[in-house]
Each structure stands twice: as structure tokens, then as C-alpha cells.
């Protein structure tokens, strides 16, 4: 059986990759995917801990998180479609109307 710590390390790797993706990638859609990866890293951590402690409660949390992530997808994609209509691009570097 694979030890729980492996899953935990995988979750940390996923989270860090996601965070780097958010900070480094320029396409809003890719940034958004990286965000989803961060949420899923948290899910993995929750499930790993749930298995470590033989507790059910943390597994339920994952369903909450998935629901929230779905709601965020709905809003995020709508916002991106909206901005694509006016700018013909979802490149973050081009979002420079607001500065000062």
C-alpha cells in the first residue's frame, strides 16, 4: 500500500505548480486551470488526511469544495467570455486599462 505521505507530497507539488502557474502564465484560461489545480491539491490533502485519521468528515469537505469550484468556473468563464468580446483576447498582460 502506498504510504499516505506520498499523497501529501503529491498534493504539495500540485499546489506549488498551480501557484506558479497563476503567477507565471499569461493566458487567463491557463491561470484559471492552475487555480483549479490548487483547489484539487487541497482536495487531495483533505482526502489523504481523512485516510490517515480514518475520519469521514474530511471526505465530505471535498464535495463542498467541488461545488464551490463549479460555481467559480461558471462565474470565471462568463467573465472571460465577456472580456473576450470587448478585447478579443484573454491575455493578462493586455489588461492594463487600470493602473496608476
Amino acid at each position, binding site marked *: 500500500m502506498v504510504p499516505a505521505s506520498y499523497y501529501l507530497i503529491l498534493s504539495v507539488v500540485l499546489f506549488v505548480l498551480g501557484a506558479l502557474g497563476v503567477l507565471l502564465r499569461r493566458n487567463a484560461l491557463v491561470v484559471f486551470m492552475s487555480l483549479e489545480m490548487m483547489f484539487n491539491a487541497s482536495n487531495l*490533502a483533505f482526502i489523504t488526511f481523512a485516510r490517515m485519521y480514518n475520519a469521514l468528515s474530511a471526505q465530505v469537505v471535498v464535495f463542498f469544495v467541488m461545488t464551490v469550484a463549479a460555481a467559480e468556473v461558471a462565474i470565471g468563464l462568463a*467573465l472571460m467570455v465577456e472580456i473576450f468580446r470587448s478585447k478579443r483576447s484573454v491575455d493578462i498582460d493586455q489588461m492594463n486599462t487600470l*493602473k496608476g
Partner: protein
Amino acid sequence: MTLSDFLTLLPAIVLLAWGVIMLVVDLFLPTNRKGITPLLSGIGAAAGLGVNFALTGYSQTGFNGMVVLDGFASFTNTLLLISSLFAIMLSYDYMRRMNIERSECCALMLISTAGMMIMVQAYDLIVLFLALELFSIPLYVMSGLVRGKISSEEAALKYFLLGAFSSAFLLYGVAFLYGATMHTNLAGIVSAIQGGAVQTVFLMLGVALLLVGLAFKLAVVPFHSWAPDVYQGAPTPVTGWMSVSVKIAALAALLRVFVIAFPSVAAQISPVLGVLAALTMIVGNVLALVQTDIKRLLAYSSIASAGYLLMAFVPYGQGEVASDSIAAGLFYMIGYLFASFAAWAVVAAVEKEDGKGLQIADYAGLARRHPWLAVAMMIAMVSYIGVPPTLGFWGKFYLFRTALEGGLVWLALIGLLTSLFSAYYYLRVVVVMFMQPGETEARREVWVNLLAVVSAGATLLLAFIPWQLLDLASTAFLRFP
């Protein structure tokens, strides 16, 4: 689930239900009668306020200890509900003028306020996360309410990406706290820490990630970069409301979670908080100095306010000081609420349909054409600086006193110096309004003018009864397990 469980969350439930009903009612309203929705949502917020007052004094937990109703929650809920009422007043004419009169705005405002109230009442980190999302997601939509206007859409996308980023940090922090203590419930976390059976590495990591997540919402430097852009791009009433309510909710959650669950890690966390507070005060005030746009100026001013609030929170681990820092933080919030709405009401009144009228230079001569608005703005600015006789003075006074009580002389000194420094850019607005010649036109609209006068009046008049207000804030106790 019993009736008393629902009683615990009743103010939030009233607002949520009202918000959903409003969305349905909207379907049956003809397009030219959309103006009625702000009035309806105002009634909803007032009903929530009434329920909240009726429940003040209760102290109970609900839903298996997931949420709690205590003096702290009642007090903060009152502030949040007043803030949403003010925001509805602010948006009534503005939305029509900007041609974005769509009723989802007010409905979303109610739903988001309900999320903030649940966040304040959360006694479980999962509820905290869900409440955070419940109030954030409507906020993303409201920032982008002006469809087709690039600055508003851009603000919404930036807020969305960075907001979701911060939620991910918070959630990962909760996961590690669960890993450290086997609990997400605050009471469970406390008993696990006291029992000594915790993984210290996980605990510290969890606390740090949680702090990052909340610091984003509070716009603490270095997690503030979204705030000026979002505040500038979002519609003015939404910005004004957001700058007050989100700050109240995030601060209240920070206070509750850290004071209840993590006094044991105060030795490690307090220095970090101290550095964050110092950075926030310095960066917020220095960057405010170079702004020419009034909305960005107020954005940086709100960042600086977060720094002052955080300053008083640094010694939260020192038993006796903790209750003082809660009282001082809540007290400052009262002053911040009234001063902010006075300022934002003036901004909304001066802003033109085409998005002009937001530069500080556009305020030249406001005092001659609209003396009431100019005086309201002046009172707000003076209160932000912290000059008596305004609520802002007493707010800063108690914050500094708490910091000194906690032995943080260096931090209080930085706060004092940056406050002096801030006088320059706040007074520049006053000078432009009163001394420079110009023909600034503002809207003569009942609700906005009323809001400016009422908020400024409250900032001024309540400053004469600071002891009573502080007593109120001090009795806003936290319910300990």
C-alpha cells in the same frame, strides 16, 4: 436540526431568502420599473437589521457547533447591515444614471452580505471557507456589472483570479489545520492544541496559509495589488460598499479565528503580523500620495486603514490585550464605515455619466457649488487622518493605545508617523475643493446627498460619545467553547 439552529443564522437567512425572492420578483417587473428593486432590497436589509437587533444578546451555537451567535457576531452583523443599507442608498440613482439599472445588483448585494454575516458567525473553518466564497462570488459579478466597459470587466477578472487564488490558499491552510489537529471546528482545534497531540509543522503551515488567504481579502501589503485596480474599475457604489464590508468581514473572521483557536502560536505569528502591519501602513500611505484618481486614492487609504487595524491585532496572544484589540478594531470599524460612506457618496455624486469627474482636480470649486458635499468630504478626510473631533481620531487613539499596551512602541511610532504623512494627501483633496476655483457640478439627488450628510454627521456627532461606543464594542464578547 432544530429551530434554535436556524435562530442562530436568522439574520443571514432573512437576507438570503430576500435576495433570492428579489431575483424572482425581477422577472415580473417591466424594464422601466426596475427602480423599485433598490427600495425592495432596502426593505430586506432593514428587516435583517431588525432581526439582528432582536437577537442581540443571544449567545448560542447552532448546527453542531458550526456557527455561533454571540455579541461579537451581533455587533459586526449590525455594521454589515448598515453598510449594505447605505450601499443601496448609494446605488439607487447611480445605477440609473450609468444605465446599469439591473436588479441583480441589489439582490447580489443582499446575498453577499449574508455570506459576510455567516463568515463572521463561522465557528468551523469549512463554514468560514464556504461563507468566504458566498460573499466573494457575487462580488466578482458586481465588479463587472458595467458590461461593455473595459475597465469594469478588467476589474472583475482581476478580482476573480486573485480572489480565487487567495481562497485556494485559505482552503489549503484549512486542509493542513485539519491534518494537524483532526478538526476543522474551532472548539476541536482548541482542544487538540491543548491536548498537545498536534503536528507542529502542519499547524504552522496551516496558520500561515490561512493568514495569507484572509490578508488577501483584507488587502494587506504585500497581498494588496488587486485592491486599487478593482476599486477603480468597479461601479462606485459597489466599490464603496466593498471597501467597507469586505474589510469588516475579513477582519472579524481573522479576529475570531486567531483569538479563539491560535493564541498558542502567537509567539511565532505576532512578529509576522507586526511586519505586515508596518508594511501596510507605510506602502498604503506612500502610494496614496502619488494618486490623481480619487477612487485609487481612497483604495490606498483603505489599504492603510487595514494596516492600522492589523497593528492593534498584533498583540492578540497577550490575554488581557486581546479583548482590547477586539474592542479597538470594532470601534475603528464604526468610524471607518461612516467616514467611507461619506466620502464615497460624494464621489458618486460628482462622477459623470461618461466616467469623467474622478480626478482629484475635478473637485475644484466643489465647496462653492455644493457646500454640503464639500463639507461631508472634508469631514471624511479629517476622520481618515485621525484629527479630533471625529470618530477617526478616537478609532486611531484606541488602536494606538492597544498597540502600546502590547508593548509595540515601534509599531505605534510607525503608525503615528504615517498618519502625519497621510494628512498631506487627504488635505490636498480638501484644498482642491475649497481653495481652487472651478465649476464642479454634482448630482442633486436625494439619496446620495442624504447619505453624505448622514454619514458625515454621524462621523462628527458620534465622536462626542466615544466611551459609550467603546463600551458597546467591548461588550461585543466572543463566545468561547
